[in-house]
Each structure stands twice: as structure tokens, then as C-alpha cells.
């Protein structure tokens, strides 16, 4: 039977000090000071739900060897594109087969659990991916700003090397409006927290869980991990008590370190539970929003030997403290930063030209010459080797997983960048090939010729005039 075979997560490196946020806004809402402890993850200016999804999926795929993927579903309520299938962009960045099934699942905080259920109940014979990614915007100085975080998580599903099998699944569809975001709205609108707790969580979750446990022949005391994604700090424990689940089984929502990652939170916490689970452990995963999904999983013997490439614990450690609240506001367009005249240059993407270069731009595919073996990027008509120059001789060759060495670099303070200075330079790839490219996540003083870099799919430019954004690969210094 289909179960979970691997997982991977991504949490942006930048962690915003909540104290900085609270102190900046306490002048109008002193209650924020009580939330001003710890930190939350924030996307860099060049990250969004797509780029984080790619990172989480790469971490997941890296655990899997050479398994073909038949389907990729992407769950989010913050898709960069409302009409351009985001899961296809993720799929192309991963260079997955073009015959696979793709789907975007959104519009609810239980999008990811619903997507997971759809894949678990599907007839796919091969491996599938459920990726959940969230980059939620909230008003400056809102409680949400201090309670939410940005992150992505991915689980692979299949019938071989299953590390967690499905015991049971239940769903309740109920238009309970704890919050909503309409077509015309920029931000969520929510209702009183206590009402959501009492009339929402406390009523609908037990309804579904009781049915699920009855149908599965499992008692609540047997549950080892209880996952309830919510930004309400005490509700998971209160609900566990009501359900009869042991308190130490409640999986922490990481409010003090990451923040609640919206629709990705359920999968992120599932990954966290899987990282800690022993063979036989039962995991109860809830997705809450316009009703509730409940999925009961049991860890198999295979989980004992499974080693994630990047689970939650590793992702938590890959961090950089950010204390500049203004930077967060600017990255999320919550203030209009002066971008200078150099920032005014038109960034139109010529879609026909983009389409011709899609393998390079999204897949980071270059070429390898059949005549002389030279690898190169970009792939052009003639081989770049001066001793060869053969025509149409290059097979596609991926640079996405190649490490590189910084050959030359600078920190450019003249050119426009959302997070100046703009770091870029020439990267020499292991195994050959070189490219002048952007660096991201550079901390001052950490880069020099000889630094080792890895490749990451990021936003390259925004075309705010037309609501488009370009993606490309950037180099990140390896720690």
C-alpha cells in the first residue's frame, strides 16, 4: 500500500528577531511585547512559495536515489501565480519527467493534508511528491506577523521503502470561517481567537478524530505524535487532553523558532514527527480549515534506517539572525522602499524568448559535447572548447546539483538590488563549466575567490508593472 517513503524540508535561513518586530510596533499595540520572544523564519527578497518548494523537494528527492516521479502536487495559499500552474514550475526546476501529473492545491489551510489524502488514495503506481510551501503576508504590526513563519516541506509517497504507512483517513467538510482572504483582498481577515478555539478546533477535530480512531481500531492513548497546525499556542495541548492523547505526544508548532507556516505547517510538522518516530509509532496529522482532515500514520521498521538529507532539525540550525525589521517590511512590500532610478528600469519578460531558454532558466541545464566531452553553460550552437567548436554536439547536462568554486566576485553597491550590495561573480563548476552568476545569502566577509558554492533556484527579478517574476539559479556559499 502507498505510504510515505521520504521527506525533506526547507526553512529560510533568515530568522527575524521578534523583539525587533514587537518593539517597532508596541507604540500602537503594547500587547505585541508579550509575543516578542524568539524568532520567526522570513523569506529573503528572492524567495517565495515556489523557490522554497523546490528546496524542500530537492531535499526529499536526495533521499530517494533514482526513483522516477509520477506526480507532483503543490499545496499553498500563497502561490506566486494565480493562473500559471506553480507546480509545473517546481517540477521543471527539479527537471522531473514531463509526463507526470501536476496540480496546485490551495484556498485552505488544509490544502496540504487534502493533497496528501488525494495522493494516498490515488491509483499512482509509482512515486509521487506532495510539496507544501507558504510565504504568507500579514499587516505590519499584526499578531500574525509575530506568529507566522515562512517554510516548505515535501513528502514522497510510494509503495517501496515505506517509512510511514496509512492507518486511516477521515475528512469533515464544514464552511467554518475562522479567517478568509477574498479575491480583492491583500491580507487575511480573521475572527476572535477564543471563538475559533471553542467552536472550531474543539468541536470539529474531535468529530473527525473519533470516527478515524473507531474505524482504525486505535485508541487515543496509543497516539505517539499529535500534529495540530495552529498559531494558537495552547490549543493543541487543550485538544489533546480533550481527545485523551498523551501531552508529550503534542508536536510543538515552533512558534518561538519558525512560526506557523500556513498550509505547509502540517507537512513540516509531519517531517518533524517522522524524524523522531520509532518503528510502530502512530502519528495523527490534522489539517484544519473549512472543516478538517485527519490522517493516521504508523511508522514502519524502515524508519529506523532512514536518514533525511534535511529534516526540521537540520533546517533549524541553518540560520542567520535578522534584526532589521525594515528589511522584512521591504522584502514583503509592506513599505514602499525608495529603489532609486536604477530600479526603475523595465523588467519585462519576453515570453517567447523565455520559452526558448526554459531549460537553462528553470532547469539549469547546460550542455556536454559529444565530440570532446566539454561541459558548458549556457548551451550554445557551437561547442565552446576552442579545440572543438563542433556544431549541435551538446547533450543536456544539469548543473543544478553541481558544486562550484568562486573564481571572481564583487559586492556591487551601484547596481539595483533588493538587498544591496549585489553579490555576483564567476563560478567554476566541479567537472567543468563556468558561469557569471548572482550569489545570494552572502554574509559580509564570508566570500572570496576559492569559496565553495551550491546552486539554488531563486527569484531573479520582479516585473511589478505586469505582475510577473523571473526565476533563475543562484550560488550560495557552503558553510
Amino acid at each position: 500500500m502507498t505510504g510515505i517513503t521520504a521527506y525533506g524540508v526547507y526553512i529560510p535561513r533568515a530568522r527575524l528577531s521578534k523583539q525587533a518586530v514587537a518593539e517597532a510596533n508596541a507604540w500602537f499595540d503594547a500587547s505585541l511585547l508579550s509575543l516578542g520572544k524568539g524568532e520567526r523564519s522570513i523569506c529573503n527578497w528572492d524567495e517565495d512559495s515556489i523557490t522554497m518548494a523546490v528546496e524542500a523537494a530537492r531535499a526529499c528527492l536526495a533521499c530517494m536515489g533514482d526513483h522516477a516521479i509520477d506526480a507532483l502536487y503543490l499545496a499553498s495559499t500563497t502561490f506566486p501565480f494565480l493562473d500559471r500552474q506553480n507546480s509545473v514550475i517546481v517540477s521543471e526546476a527539479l527537471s522531473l519527467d514531463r509526463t507526470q501529473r501536476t496540480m496546485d492545491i490551495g484556498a485552505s489551510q488544509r490544502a496540504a493534508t487534502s493533497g496528501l489524502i488525494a495522493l494516498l488514495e490515488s491509483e499512482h503506481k509509482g512515486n509521487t511528491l506532495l510539496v507544501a510551501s507558504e510565504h504568507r503576508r500579514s499587516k505590519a504590526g499584526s499578531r500574525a506577523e509575530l506568529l507566522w513563519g515562512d517554510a516548505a516541506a515535501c513528502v514522497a509517497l510510494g509503495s517501496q521503502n515505506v517509512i510511514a504507512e496509512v492507518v486511516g483517513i477521515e475528512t469533515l467538510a464544514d464552511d467554518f470561517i475562522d479567517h478568509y482572504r477574498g479575491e480583492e483582498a491583500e491580507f487575511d481577515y480573521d475572527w476572535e481567537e477564543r471563538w475559533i478555539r471553542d467552536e472550531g478546533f474543539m468541536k470539529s477535530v474531535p468529530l473527525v478524530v473519533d470516527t478515524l480512531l473507531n474505524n482504525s481500531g486505535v485508541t487515543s492513548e496509543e497516539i505517539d505524535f499529535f500534529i495540530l497546525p495552529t498559531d494558537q499556542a495552547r490549543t493543541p495541548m487543550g485538544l489533546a487532553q480533550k481527545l485523551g492523547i498523551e501531552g508529550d505526544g503534542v508536536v510543538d508548532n515552533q512558534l518561538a523558532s519558525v512560526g506557523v507556516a500556513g498550509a505547509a505547517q502540517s507537512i513540516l510538522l509531519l517531517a518533524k514527527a517522522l524524524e523522531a518516530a520509532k518503528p510502530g509509532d502512530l502519528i495523527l496529522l490534522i489539517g484544519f480549515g473549512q472543516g478538517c482532515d485527519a490522517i493516521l500514520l504508523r511508522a514502519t521498521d524502515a524508519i529506523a534506517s532512514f536518514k533525511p538529507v534535511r529534516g526540521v532539525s537540520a533546517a533549524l540550525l541553518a540560520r542567520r539572525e535578522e534584526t532589521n525589521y525594515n528589511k522584512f517590511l521591504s522584502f514583503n512590500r509592506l513599505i514602499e522602499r525608495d529603489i532609486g532610478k536604477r530600479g526603475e528600469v523595465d523588467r519585462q519578460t519576453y515570453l517567447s524568448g523565455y520559452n526558448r531558454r526554459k531549460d537553462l532558466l528553470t532547469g539549469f541545464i547546460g550542455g556536454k559535447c559529444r565530440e570532446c566531452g566539454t561541459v558548458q553553460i549556457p548551451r550554445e550552437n557551437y561547442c565552446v572548447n576552442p579545440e572543438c567548436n563542433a556544431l549541435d554536439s551538446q547533450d543536456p547536462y544539469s548543473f543544478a546539483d553541481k558544486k562550484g568554486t568562486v573564481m571572481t566576485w564583487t559586492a556591487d553597491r551601484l547596481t539595483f538590488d533588493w538587498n544591496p550590495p549585489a553579490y555576483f561573480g564567476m563560478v567554476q563548476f566541479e567537472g567543468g563549466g563556468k558561469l557569471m552568476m548572482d550569489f545570494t545569502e552572502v554574509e559580509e566577509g564570508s566570500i572570496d575567490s576559492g569559496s565553495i558554492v551550491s546552486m539554488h533556484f531563486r527569484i531573479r527579478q520582479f516585473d511589478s508593472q505586469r505582475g510577473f517574476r523571473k526565476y533563475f539559479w543562484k550560488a550560495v556559499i557552503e558553510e
Partner: protein
Amino acid sequence: MATGIKDKVVILGMGCSKFGERWESSPADLMVEAFEECLADCGIERNQIEAAWFGAGIDAFNVGSSALPLSIALRLNYIPVTKVENMCATGTEAFRGAVYAVASGACDIALALGVEKLKDTGYGGLPQRTRGVENDMYWPNLSAPGAFAQLASGYRAKHHLNKDDLKRAMAHVSVKSHANGAKNPKAHLQREITEEQVVNAPFIAEPIGLFDCCGVSDGSACAIVTTPEIARSLGKENLVAVKALQLAVSNGTESSHDSWDGSYLKTTRIASHRAYAEAGIRKPLEEITMTEVHDCFSITELVTMEDLGLAEEGKGVNAVLDGNFDADGKNPCQIDGGLKCFGHPIGASGLRMIYENYLQLQGRAGARQLANPKLGLNHNLGGFPHQNICSISIVGPLT
């Protein structure tokens, strides 16, 4: 068998506008200023010009496309005018067109004029502009200093230099050019500076600071060329002849092939070898008495001196600090202030360099006149260290 350009074409006259922030001057004003000086120098009438080459580097912030702006500004007599653009090598490219036209016998007298109006952008530095539909999708958003800072890091890594030593040599390059520019009334920047000022100036693109960058200027320069016979028939003496004209354009090897390490300018090495062969120069260090090189940034000049064979590879820092390229050094470089201080109106720069060599060879360089100039080398570099166009011209007394 090609015999090269040496001594086939001479400069009949030249002109150069004042470079600088010419807020009050249109591109046409600048063109006319250079052209009037040139015509007077030649002692010919406008209608004796049979063909013209017009260089302008950045269309969008300048005169627009085509040859029309030149023909209209100078009221040329419906002659053939060709617009050329080859980034910072544009001025030399225009010169090359005119010289080749005369050498081929297609016409007797030809004009080359370059102009750039850079100060209509509303901000400092070169204009932000497109690199083409496909390049714009993945190239870093690199500024010119950002691009040439790569050369500094590549050079530093190759020769295991520490940051401070290289920066000090870069500073000397700029201090020298400011000292020279102070003696040039047409220069954009005419104030002397100190090494401390250079080193302590804010970074534009590490390690390039404010004083490592050349001036971004408005300006125009032009040349009228003809055959030695016609020049003599017009009563000209002390003729300055073209000895070599070479162009080397990157083919993507530096940017995509592992053979280039980012520490030097491959095109400059290739173009200079060809130019020396064309001019019959065997020992450049001894035979070339002055150079005007493309010092868009101090590091570019330092590395270029090695690539031209005027300093030993990896020893550019010493050669600079020893004063080899100072006004009183063995091989004076940028005696007019260079791009650094004369200024860098893109399309005019190549012609401005030739203008200085021409004045020096004719003994008309005023306060900055060198004692005994013989061969002068001019070097332009358009683009970026990893993808560029290098033009080299050599001029000297007709032999």
C-alpha cells in the same frame, strides 16, 4: 597576402570637445565643437569629406539610432555615413571604418566622429540598460564597476596578493591620472588627489572605490583621415600615420570555457600581439613611448599594462608603484588624464585617445607635452572582463 595598415593612412586633422558634465550642451553641440576644431586643423571645407563613420555607444540615452544624427548635426552633404557601435571600443571602431575606407581607395578623405551624451539619465554612473532579451533573463544585474571588480578579485587570487597591496597600486594609478588631468584644460576632472583619498573612498563595487572609477562624461572627438600624398598636397608636415589597427572580440571562451582564470584580458593580449606585428614593433617596452589605455577602472589599467607586454605578468603592482607609467616614467600612460580624468564619453573615447597621441606627436600638447614621443598606443575595452571587445590603434610619425 594582407600587408596591414601601416603608413597607408595619415591623420589630416583632429578635434575634441571639452569633456565633462555638459548640462547645457546637446549631442549636436558636442559634435559641432569637435568638428569645428578638426576642420580648422585640416584646413579643408566640409564638402571635401567623402564619407563618414559615426560612433555612439549607448543609443537609448544619447542620440538615437542610425547615422542621421551626425549627418544632420554637421549638415554633411548627403555623403555615405555609417553608424557604428561596439561598446567602449566604439570610437576606435569609427576611426577604423574611416581609415579602411581611405586605405581601400574608396575615398580620399573620410571623417570619424564619436559622441556620447551620458549626463541625461538623472543619476550617476553609466546608464542602466538592457543586455538583450536572452541575456537579461539570467545575467547578474552587473554595473560596470561590478564587472571590473571581478578582474581585481581574479588577479588577486591568481597572484596571491593581499587586498591592501593591490588597492595601494590601484590608488597610484588614479593619483597619477589625476596629476596628468590637472594639466589638461579639456579634462573632465582637473584636480589632483592623494593615495589616502583613493584608499578611504567608499566602495562602489568591492574593491573598486569611488576614485578607482573613471569619469562619466559628455563629449565628442573626431578625426579626418586621408592618404599621405593628399596630406602633403594640402601642405601638411609632421604627418602622423596609422601604424596598426586591431580588434579582438571575445567568442565566449572566457565566459564559458575552463581555460580562462579571470586574471587577465585575453582580447588585449591577442589584439596587442596583432598590432605589434602590423606596426613592426618587436620590443614594445622600448619602442612605444606613450600609451592611452582603457582605464575605466584603476584595476583595468594595471592589468592592461601586463597584457600589452609593458609590465611582466603578475608584476603590474610593482611596475605601477615604481612609477613606470607616471608622466616622468619610462612608459607614460594617460598623459592627458585618461578615461579617469579626461573623462569617458563612450563613443568618443577611442578618438580622444588618438587625439592626445596626435597632439603629442605634433608637439602641441601644451603643459603635458612629452619630451620625445615616438609611437603612441591606444587601447579600448568594451564590455566586461569575461566578454569584451578590445581595439588597439598605434600611431606615429609617417616613415
